[in-house]
């Protein structure tokens, strides 16, 4: 794949003695909406952190537009500022991402670090808060926000930099159904924006809305890569990688039973 945004080659990463990624390989084309699928602990979040340049591979390489992402490279201001301007990550836990005492400060944090002018920051903060319908939360402290509001503020805090690449770690985790659909709507709205969007998730219900392509992780390795319909059709793969679940449910015929299943178009 020529001109890949990210090129991950044979990457290994461990937390102490626990292997999170072991020989991971991946190439991401510009403008692609990619979903990283896998059960908890399969290595999705670790890969996102490697792509965001906050973790660094023990072995193997992670390249962004041909440049290897290494600690030494991030020591250079010019490279670090350019990378942070173009690549942004949404963390799974919004309490980690919202570390400022008010929504305004939170959204302004990134541009302040990148030394934007005060006037530009003020106007951009106002605009992004309006765009995400959270202008009324501007002076609120994070502990006075609901889960859905926190997520929107976190999205605003990364979108304000207008990044070309968005890395989303479980963007709908722990949200109520209404907040989930609002966040999915925002992500789905980026379809024709030209942005590269990489989403780590195990929520198969929203896959076709947020991704054009999927890779499936298991035990730190990529075990499959295909389009969302192809992945969703492969029940054996989903079962093997822990992405299907069992629970009792009723069919139109009135029959109640339990088997591993998905929640879209299922008739059996």
């Amino acid at each position: 794949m020529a001109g890949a945004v990210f090129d991950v080659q044979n990457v290994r990463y461990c937390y102490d003695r626990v292997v999170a990624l072991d020989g991971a390989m991946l190439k991401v084309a510009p403008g692609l909406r990619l979903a990283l699928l896998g059960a908890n602990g399969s290595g999705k979040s670790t890969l996102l952190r490697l792509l965001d340049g906050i973790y660094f591979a023990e072995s193997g390489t992670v390249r962004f537009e041909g440049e290897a992402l290494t600690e030494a490279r991030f020591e250079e201001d010019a490279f670090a500022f350019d990378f942070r301007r173009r690549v942004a990550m949404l963390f799974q836990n919004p309490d980690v991402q919202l570390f400022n005492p008010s929504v305004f400060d939170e959204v302004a944090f990134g541009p302040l670090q990148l030394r934007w002018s005060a006037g530009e920051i003020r106007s951009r903060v106002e605009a992004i808060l309006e765009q995400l319908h959270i202008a009324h939360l501007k002076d609120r402290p994070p502990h006075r926000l609901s889960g859905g509001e926190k997520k929107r503020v976190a999205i605003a805090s990364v979108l304000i930099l207008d990044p070309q690449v968005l890395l989303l770690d479980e963007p709908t985790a722990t949200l109520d159904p209404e907040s989930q659909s609002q966040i999915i709507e925002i992500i789905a709205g980026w379809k024709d924006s030209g942005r590269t969007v990489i989403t780590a998730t195990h929520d198969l219900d929203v896959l076709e809305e947020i991704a054009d392509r999927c890779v499936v992780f298991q035990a730190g390795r990529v075990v499959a890569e295909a389009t969302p319909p192809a992945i969703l059709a492969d029940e054996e793969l989903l079962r093997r990688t822990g992405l299907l679940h069992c629970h009792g449910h009723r069919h139109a015929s009135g029959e109640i039973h339990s088997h591993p299943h998905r929640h879209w178009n299922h008739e059996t």
Partner: protein
Amino acid sequence: MARRGFLDGSIHGFLEALEHALESEEVAKRRGLLQSLDPRAKLLGILGLVIAATTSRRLTVIGAVFLLACILTIASRVPLRTLLVRTWLGTLAFTGLIALPAVFCTPGLARWHLPLVGWPVTVTGIRTAAYLISRVETAATLSVLLVLSTPWTHVLKALRVLRVPAVLVVVLGMTYRYILLLIGTAREIFESRRSRTVGRLDPGQRRRMAISAAGVLLSKTMYLSGEVYLAMQSRGFRGDAYLLDEFRMGARDWMWLVLLTGASAGAVWAGRR
């Protein structure tokens, strides 16, 4: 009121801390005199009054500044009861304990003697204690008034006008943000323990519970701080803190700043011996 058990008492304490924070935020949002002023004008004006109260050598002047603080409290729709409970009683008890020995130990003309022990109560001693208590009460009232009438984030940012380093303001802001989060976590730890506890805990169990909760919180804090640092790095943080305020000093803010600093200067002048 029935005596609370250890777990209930702890949970109540956490809830009370959160309620205080929420109450302060509600008061800061009210449409009152101080709430309508630029935080920097407020900070400088109140700081001037604190200096005047603490340097004055006349009780009448300290009393006048205290009265002005009470007028500002009412004009800012801050409940006097909140000040009484949160500030005046606590300050009186704490400062009173410190000032009490001065009543008996300060040399001077003894007006009375304590029954039974016969310790002399001197006029100089009473005056010394009165100075200490009135200065502390006035300064505490003004400080709490500033905090109650201003969102914490604005108080911190206003400190920049006093040349407080940006990094300190940022660290204080993050501390406030995460203290509330950790109080919530501590409450959940104790609630979870209470849901699995039958009967009362003996002192040894209480100690173990408190130590284990402290350990869990410390471990969570360490994890959280690592994650927050990564989130900061991810958005371009490279070790330097920057701040942006939205404050605008209008004519009304300048007028009140002049009035408050004028009153402070007048009190300093009148308070000379």
